[in-house]
């Protein structure tokens, strides 16, 4: 009896395929090879090359060769108070933004997780923000925040409140934009989780006269927790990388996130080696945080 491999690899003689010399296996490989080549060229090679440059004094703007300097870049970065300030600002931003996204996204999911008229249309409209380009979002939110003619101040009756010019408020303003843009993502995952909660649990709770808070904290949240954790992991990783809308909205030092500092170091100052080292520090931090989240995720799943 022919196996799948036989069918895939066997060529009937006197066929066009036989004349071309291309078997199904070859065609399959031809489809995969470009993708693998792309990954190697644009992912693997840059990763390894930047690891090398992280230990050199290389500057791409000069023709001077890269000299090995060991851990000097890492030492300089970790002893630079401005870099620690960037990390602090980013951590604050991540906490505010992700917390906001979870609260708003999960709240929206709870509201939508019931039969309501036009539910499909409402859900689609709520998903629109995350489909927009972050740069475009930054540009029009800058107009919305304008103290002279922005509609946010107008509708909230805030007069000429300066969202982006006030260094104490600017970071919150940027985080609000991120929450607006990515809450739909959390909402989507939460909806999936909520719809998977067995209805009979709610019925049983109702029979036992369980209140809404009890039902939420003892049934809904524990069962939705794993998928919520996945949403938090993704959003935390993305929040750490925030660049587009933050760069456009504000150039305040109090909103200089890691990605913005990295961009300036790499492409304005052309400190290629130093910025590679910085990128690896950020990578290690993100991987560490993700590992912590995954541990909690596994615990939640086990429960």
């Amino acid at each position, binding site marked *: 009896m022919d196996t799948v491999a036989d069918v895939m690899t066997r060529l009937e003689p006197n066929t066009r395929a036989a004349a071309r010399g291309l078997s199904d296996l070859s065609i399959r490989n031809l489809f995969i090879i470009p993708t693998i080549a792309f990954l190697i060229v644009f992912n693997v090679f840059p990763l390894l090359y930047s690891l090398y440059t992280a230990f050199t004094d290389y500057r791409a*703007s000069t023709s001077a060769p890269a000299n090995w300097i060991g851990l000097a870049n890492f030492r300089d970065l970790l002893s630079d108070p401005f870099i620690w300030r960037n990390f602090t600002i980013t951590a604050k931003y991540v906490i505010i933004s992700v917390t906001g996204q979870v609260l708003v996204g999960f709240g929206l999911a709870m509201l939508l997780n019931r039969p309501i008229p036009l539910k499909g249309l409402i859900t689609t409209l709520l998903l629109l923000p995350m489909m927009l380009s972050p740069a475009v979002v930054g540009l029009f939110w800058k107009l919305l925040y304008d103290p002279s003619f922005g509609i946010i101040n107008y509708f909230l009756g805030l007069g000429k409140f300066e969202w982006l010019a006030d260094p104490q408020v600017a970071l919150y303003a940027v985080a609000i934009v991120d929450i607006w843009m990515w809450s739909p993502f959390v909402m989507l995952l939460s909806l999936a989780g909520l719809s998977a909660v067995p209805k009979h649990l709610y019925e049983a709770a109702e029979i036992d006269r369980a209140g809404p808070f009890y039902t939420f904290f003892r049934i809904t949240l524990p069962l939705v927790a794993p998928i919520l954790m996945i949403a938090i992991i993704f959003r935390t990783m993305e929040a750490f990388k925030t660049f587009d809308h933050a760069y456009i909205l504000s150039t305040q*030092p109090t909103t200089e996130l890691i990605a913005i500092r990295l961009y300036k170091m790499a*492409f304005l100052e052309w400190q290629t080696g130093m910025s590679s080292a910085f990128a690896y520090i950020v990578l290690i931090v993100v991987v560490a945080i993700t590992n912590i989240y995954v541990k909690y995720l596994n615990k939640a799943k086990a429960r």
Partner: protein
Amino acid sequence: MQRQLYRLMAGVAAIALSAPAAMSQELTIFWAEWDPANYLQELVNEYEAETGVTVTVETTPWQDFQTKAFTEFNARGSAYDMIVGDSQWLGAASEAGHYVDLTEFFNTHKLGEIMAPATVKYYAEYPGNSGKYWAVPAEGDAVGWSYRKDWFEDPAEMAAFKEKYGYDLAVPETWAQLIDIAEFFHRPDQNRYGIAIYTDNSYDGLIMGVENALFSYGGNLGDYSTYQVDGILNSDASIAGLEAYRKLYGFTPPGWSKTFFVENNQAITEGLAAMSMNYFAFFPALVNPATNPNAEVTGFFANPKGPNGDQFAALGGQGISIVSYSENQEEAFKFLEWFIKEETQKRWAELGGYTAHAATLESEEFRKATPYNEAFYQTMFMVKDFWAVPEYAELLTAANARIYPYIVGGEGTAKEVLDALTADWNETFKKYGRIQ
């Protein structure tokens, strides 16, 4: 089938390889996206008409100009034959071998005598006083001021100003007067504000703005030949200049925390501010009724003097350099020979470009050509620039990081800011071996 495919590929390759030989000579000049680049395109169309060589002025927004240019340089790309690069790039681009040495061209054509001295010093020569040249001064520019003549000439305003300050309301001749007038016209309840200044810290906007105050108060950014910064950048004069700029920020419209040439022109076109700083290159839009409803009542003046009579303005402008990786260097040199001709420079000025050609600048015809040309002419003989060393971007980043929170956020004092910046710049110069 395979043989047909190979034949097709060979044919395509043959066409691709022969295409350049079949096309006429072309040159590409890279510049930032602004009006002077449009004027240059109009000018080079005349070169094409004369010589048959097509010259294209390719542009990109100012915020991306440096990144895009240096990305191409670092890749040793030949996309651009010439570049109208920023004056601060001279050091970085020349030391890295991105620019063709134009010293021989400069000396052969006596450009040191033909072009305005400040433009030769800042747009073309690196290192300072070395006699080595890397660019031909192309677009002279500096910071000037526009103002609402109707507000200044209103009899009621003039009377009120005289009563409050004890002298006549007129175009400010000193920074003290500039601050007084900004304070006088600052009326948030009427949606009128005193002044518009640069605060954008994403590139050099804020620092160029601060330079106008710092230089005119007698301060400096350091000694460009010895790299000494201590006692110069944080001198009493520099501190006073920075404090003056901070005072002006208090009279700007709300939300004026990331502003550059677009916003500062809007301050006049939208009737927001009494006075606005901007590079002269952006003033044509202010005298055009189509772009400025207040064009008829917009006037211009040069940067005022400081308390000790010093009068300087931040230099803008660029020189045109030949890119080392260009495959058309010979043709590029021919273009430059055409560009430096007196009749071409006159034509450049007519089209709106700010010629650096001294004779054209000094002519009555040029000085009377527009309402701002006289101020421009005066300014071009009192300009100073930022550091043009290869590590200028790091100096700029440090300056933005220290100065911005003080100007916009009111954090710290001017002395603390300049002391900290002095330390930062010393570290940077030590890192690159400029000082011990």
